[in-house]
């Protein structure tokens, strides 16, 4: 971060001095608070807390809210109640991905929580698609979103808020009160560990952050994106450029059986085409740049989409977009100068899958 860039979070005054900031889209966020190894370990083996500052929080309200949302969102939200949330892609007419959003059902409409740093584009798109009887309100500045992730995150929620909330069914939402403050509590996450999110006023979030960091390890955006990649949760800013939904392998974030939605025709055309596919790979000591050629015996068969160093694997972990007849796990390919092996997802088994809530 340069001296002229201001952190997006209103909680940044409470961050430790060791915090490393960086730009993610149009937001300046905490990439890490201390050592990424400790923050990653908290996600996979203990409990981590995130300040998801920079997440666009956009309300769609009015009598036509559900109709507009049904048209804008790739997934079917016709029966989404105020007690449920779900994840969906938002597409342009040509099938280009605008963003991945978490859709929170609300009594008077819906609240969309987009990707960190993607607010400007998402807001512009929603306003361009809005119709009469609908109000699009950017609530990013007045609300804060905190998240807990980890195999023991349920224990933190129990100690901090309410043990019963920790055991809610996946993608449930509850309006609750915490120390006199109204909050919205959701059981949802993005690392395949036990995940929870809390939507609160910025003022309430300051208190909650202070308490939460006594119970869980504050973790930054670097560790979060690494953990998302390991379980093949799409990272739109890294994966969507120059690719359609099918090439991304994100078809599960649209509902092709829906009558219609913006971009549906393009998705159907992509599905019918023999397009490239995305596959995970690991291997090599250097982290290849996006666009690095993937080859077999010197013949180009694809390119790297996104890669990082995986702490769990102890090697490079990445995604490559390759020819459909080679898009399968268990193959040995070459990325740059390194030999890599294609993988099945998830690339790291979440500890939460074998850790019961007690």
């Amino acid at each position, binding site marked *: 971060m340069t001296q002229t860039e201001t952190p997006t979070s209103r909680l940044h005054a409470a961050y430790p001095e060791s915090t490393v900031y960086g730009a993610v889209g149009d937001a300046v966020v905490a990439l890490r608070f201390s050592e990424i*190894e*400790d923050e*990653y*370990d908290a996600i*996979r*083996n203990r409990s981590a807390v995130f300040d998801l500052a920079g997440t666009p929080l956009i309300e769609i309200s009015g009598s036509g809210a559900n109709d507009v949302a049904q048209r804008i969102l790739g997934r079917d939200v016709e029966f989404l109640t105020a007690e449920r949330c779900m*994840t969906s892609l938002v597409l342009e007419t040509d099938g280009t991905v605008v963003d991945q959003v978490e859709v929170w059902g609300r009594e008077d409409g819906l609240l969309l929580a987009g990707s960190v740093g993607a607010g400007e584009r998402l807001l512009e798109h929603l306003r361009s698609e809005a119709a009469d009887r609908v109000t699009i309100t950017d609530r990013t500045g007045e609300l804060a979103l905190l998240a807990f992730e980890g195999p023991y995150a349920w224990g933190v929620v129990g100690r901090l808020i309410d043990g019963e909330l920790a055991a809610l069914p*996946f993608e449930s939402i509850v309006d609750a009160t915490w120390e006199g403050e109204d909050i919205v509590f959701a059981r949802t996450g993005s690392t*395949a560990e036990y995940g929870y999110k809390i939507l609160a006023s910025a003022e309430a979030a300051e208190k909650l952050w202070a308490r939460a960091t006594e119970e869980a390890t504050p973790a930054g955006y670097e560790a979060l994106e690494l953990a998302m990649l390991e*379980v*093949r*949760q799409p990272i739109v800013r890294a994966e969507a450029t120059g690719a359609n939904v099918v090439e991304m*392998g994100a*078809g*599960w974030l649209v509902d*092709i*059986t829906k009558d219609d939605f913006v971009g549906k025709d393009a998705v159907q055309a992509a*599905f019918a085409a023999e397009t490239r*596919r*995305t*596959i*995970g790979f690991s291997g090599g000591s250097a982290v290849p740049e996006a666009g690095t050629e993937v080859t*077999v*015996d010197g*013949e180009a*068969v694809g390119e790297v989409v996104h890669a990082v160093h*995986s*702490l*769990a*694997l*102890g090697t490079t972990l990445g995604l490559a977009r390759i020819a459909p*007849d*080679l*898009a*399968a*796990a*268990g*193959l*040995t*390919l070459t990325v740059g100068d390194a030999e890599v*092996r*294609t*993988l*099945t*997802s*998830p*690339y*790291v*088994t979440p*500890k939460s*899958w*074998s850790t019961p809530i007690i």
Partner: protein
Amino acid sequence: MTIDELRAAAAARQQTCSRIKKMIVSRLDLPIEPDWITDDQPLFGRGLELDSLDVLELYVAIEAEFDVALYDSDMSVFGSVSRLAEHVDPSLPKTEPATADGAA
């Protein structure tokens, strides 16, 4: 391996994945084309949104379709179609995932 051998290996896995997708759609009566399910798509929670009752149905279906009993397997077997393929088709190379124990 040569590129043709790699293509053959990929085709073998894709064929098993395709059988699994057809089985899932048929047994669970899902309103989608089997090919719409991607090999790496999560099957539970986010993704195909299957639940524990669906797992029981799949145990039976897998035994009938592939003659493989997975009843004592952990849930990671169902991490994705491609992962499941390795457990129902012994001829496919294993790509077992890592755990994050002690990763830091």
